[in-house]
């Protein structure tokens, strides 16, 4: 059903990798029919989830892939870490909540920037955020 056409994995181990991940995301998405506004939304959302890795787990990776389905195409971003995990995911998804001294807008903000957003966490075993954005009209 879903066919991945291009894929990039960006290891997140330093602050510079946050920039690399969002730039790769923009580059990859730009081959689809995204508007420049959408490209900026995607890059911003990637920046937030990549920073979350640095803040809470120190290292992890961001996987970016283009997907084409029968009637639409888009980008899938998977941010993974093996850090301490999030105790209360519902709380972490609330605007302004932060356990790490940040603004608390990163994850809930990223959810608003993308079309689909899913977060999974197992305490002590890390966090996986999967988010997608689809082009308008599709292919």
């Amino acid at each position: 059903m879903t066919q991945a056409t291009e894929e990039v994995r960006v290891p997140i181990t330093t602050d510079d990798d946050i920039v690399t991940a969002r730039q790769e995301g923009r580059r990859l998405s730009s081959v689809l029919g995204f508007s420049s506004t959408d490209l900026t939304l995607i890059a911003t959302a990637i920046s937030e989830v990549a920073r979350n890795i640095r803040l809470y787990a120190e290292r992890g990776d961001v996987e970016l892939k283009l997907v084409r389905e029968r009637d639409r195409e888009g980008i899938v971003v998977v941010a993974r870490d093996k850090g301490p995990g999030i105790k209360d995911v519902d709380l972490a998804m609330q605007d302004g909540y932060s356990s790490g001294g940040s603004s608390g807008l990163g994850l809930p903000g990223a959810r608003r920037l993308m079309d689909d957003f899913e977060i999974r966490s197992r305490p002590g075993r890390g966090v996986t955020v999967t988010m997608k954005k689809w082009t308008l009209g599709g292919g």
Partner: protein
Amino acid sequence: MAVPILKQGDYLIASIQTALSDRDMLELRDDLLKRAGMLRSKGIIVDVTALDVMDSFASRSLRAIAHMANLRGARTVMVGIQPEVAFAMVQLGLNLEGVHTALDLEEGLKFLDRITKETGDAGD
């Protein structure tokens, strides 16, 4: 230094030229505050035209620059926020509360001329 800072009269102008890492952003904050004190600047312009993304960290850092500079007697204005960046900031729920903004460098300079003349050395 990732971001060049130019002195123009009583003002400092920091022109962000490329995407900045979090570390670059903090370095910019420290450099600007240090130089504003050293040069007794009355105003600071941060030109973000070339910034690819204004995420929560960047906006928090820029807000910190403006507030810290204000406590040291210098007014700060952010110029050049691109339309798509502004859109993303609104969606993300970010605001630059308490930070002056202007369309571009020219408007930013006019703005600083006006408020530094109006208020003299006093605050807002």
